[in-house]
């Protein structure tokens, strides 16, 4: 459906958000403090949940933003599909989109920010706004969906989204070993993930059975061995550039090729370009001049 056609759950969500007073949307609270804490007096609302439309041949799915990622994944799995969103126990679709972290497969499967085709959100004045469109390809107007992914709900509260979906691969496997991540990336055609903690590399291969077999042999020749799963990602996300800075404490895992690294202790990052900070302020004042949406959160501080 094109913009403007909204169902009852969205209307009630918009009414609940209303047009006044500080309000935050709560998902699964898996990343509740990313980008800062919400003041305690903030009114909390929940986005509608549930699959609203799915035609496997279109490879798009429409879901309420409050839908658990596990429920989304299960619905897609029945049709042999998946979306490029992290699937985390308890986390909601709207939550992972607002936080904007890729899952560990962004290298090969694509970025979370590119998964969002259309978003219906509640704006600061309580109106429902549709950004983007329902088709896999669309350049009609400005690309607000990219701006919403990773915005921590500070520009609008996600109510319903349409996501692009992909086929689930026939075969997949993890390997790990003390290899050189750059050499591994150069040698393999299209690994879905390469993670590196400074000593060990984890690589995920997926696709047709014979291709995965051949690529796995290649990875083994470079020092990797089959393993069950990737390492857990430490809590804080930093740009890989920050790792080049000296002496940060704790452990890290680099998500090779995506610009993200995860560290176990908070790292103080260098101040962004003043022009970038100024654009953030101006966007916030355009989209939420009264600062009522997800107060206390700052996307620039999203570590």
């Amino acid at each position, binding site marked *: 459906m094109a913009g403007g056609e909204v169902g009852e759950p969205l209307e009630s969500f918009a009414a609940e958000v209303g047009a006044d007073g500080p309000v935050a949307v709560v998902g699964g609270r898996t990343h509740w403090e990313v980008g800062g804490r919400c003041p305690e007096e903030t009114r909390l609302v929940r986005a509608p949940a549930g699959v609203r439309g799915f035609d496997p041949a279109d490879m798009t799915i429409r879901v309420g933003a409050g839908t658990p990622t596990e429920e989304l994944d299960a619905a897609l799995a029945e049709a042999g599909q998946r979306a490029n969103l992290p699937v985390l126990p308890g986390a909601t679709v709207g939550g992972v989109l607002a936080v904007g972290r890729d899952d560990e497969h962004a290298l090969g499967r694509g970025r979370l920010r590119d998964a969002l085709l259309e978003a219906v959100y509640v704006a600061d004045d309580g109106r429902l*706004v549709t950004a983007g469109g*329902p088709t896999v390809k669309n350049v009609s107007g400005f690309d607000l969906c990219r*701006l919403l992914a990773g915005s921590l709900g500070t520009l609008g509260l996600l109510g319903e989204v349409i996501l692009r979906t992909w086929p689930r691969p026939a075969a997949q496997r993890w390997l790990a070993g003390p290899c050189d991540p750059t050499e591994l990336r150069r040698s393999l055609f299209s690994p879905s993930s390469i993670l590196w903690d400074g000593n060990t590399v984890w690589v995920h291969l997926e696709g047709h059975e014979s291709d995965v077999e051949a690529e796995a042999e290649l990875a083994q020749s470079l020092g990797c061995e089959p393993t069950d799963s990737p390492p857990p990602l430490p809590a804080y996300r930093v740009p890989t550039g920050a790792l080049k800075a000296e002496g940060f404490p704790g452990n890290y895992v680099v998500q090779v090729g995506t610009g993200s690294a995860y560290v176990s202790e908070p790292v103080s990052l260098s101040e962004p*370009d003043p*022009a*970038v900070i100024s654009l953030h302020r101006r966007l916030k004042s355009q989209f939420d001049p009264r600062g009522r949406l997800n107060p206390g959160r700052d996307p620039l501080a999203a570590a």
Partner: protein
Amino acid sequence: MLPADRVRAATLERSIMGRDASIFEGGQAGPVCFPISTEEVQGCVDAARRNGRAVVPRGAGTGLAGGAVPLDEPVVVVTTKMNRLLSVDVDQRVAWVQPGMINLDLSRAVAEYGLHFAPDPSSQQVCSLGGNVGTNAGGPHCLAHGVTSAHVLAAEVVLMSGEAVVLGDPDGWAPGLDLRGAYVGSEGMLGITTSIAVRLTPNPPAVQTLLLAFDSVDEAAQTVSAVIADGIVPAAIEMMDKNIIWAVENFVGAGFPTDAAAVVIVEVDGLPGGVAAEADRVAELAVERGASVRRAADDDERALIWKGRKSAFGAIAQIKPNYYLHDTVVPRTRLAEVMNQVYEIVEEHDLQVMNVFHAGDGNLHPLLLFDRSEPGTMERVHAAGSAIIEASLAVGGVLSGEHGIGIEKRDFMPLMFSEADLDAQARLRQAFDPDEMANPGKVLPTGASCADVNALEQIPDGVWG
């Protein structure tokens, strides 16, 4: 500021820059500037501001929606002289390029490393990467690999304040809002691109190209849906209907079956095992739906099939002197239905149509053929165009898949977006450019139309490659 030879104000140059590859006449360029550096672009913006003029960024001028058509004599900033490849990081698969670099030149320049730039608009031999960023350009191979936005990591942009700022991060991520993503596809209305960090894609080890011929458009469209529903995302799925097949065969002799109602070109690429399995499965699904299947045996045959596809626009000149290419997207599952409606609409308006388009992502490109010297033709062309847009939106489609809104579809935006939706887009504009100095009069409807939208003109050869 710029030396005198790179600021042109002669009537001829201003008149050339008054147009792009769209149908719109009546654009009026002010001074035309050819900067060669970020500092010079900043100088152009400062000079425009001092003189109370708007600024229109322009790449190669191949846009089809009038996005680069200057309205009311703005300063036109042409980036064609900023056409260098600045750096390539082969291991990280990132290149910094200047905005005037031609799309295909980038892929040629990095071919020695086994890499390419994935977005491949049909105009890739002549369109610029800065323009690709402006329109979030697509192309046949965006089905599996994504459009321009997915391949731009960062862009240096001169804002209308005169500041230069890098949006995004060449490593792939930086904390904060995705300003990069908001900028790509903004049709020159948020700033002027002065350099771009693009993601490079490894060339696939294996490729197979199939030419499927069908007795009906319905069976062709059903096969497209069946392939996707089967869990295959080919690199490209292109469809051509009977009229265009005939024109192409007459023109280049690519060996397309002229008795077919439609042909579908499917290309699968990747590692050899998956490619072989997917090609077999595509052939099977097509045969089940009555197709005859031809598989390209080698690179030459593959090139010939693609030559047939890419010559389509040159081929139509045999039939009528003028054409108008539309660009809408419908859900893949509604393709056949909307194509049949397009045929009916065109017949009602006594026009001819050819269809050659990106079927895999539902991106229709009906090509209306006409002779503008025939009285009353233009009215019929516009009426048919509006009806096609309305038919696409009615099934849950969108206004544009890859050409953009520009002037062409600006006044159709309220058909797809509510007042609140359009207001949100205007807020993005305001945050970047509060004085609305960058490319005014495009994308967002204002109620007033400045260009002569009724003046269709033949599009130059080579625009679509």
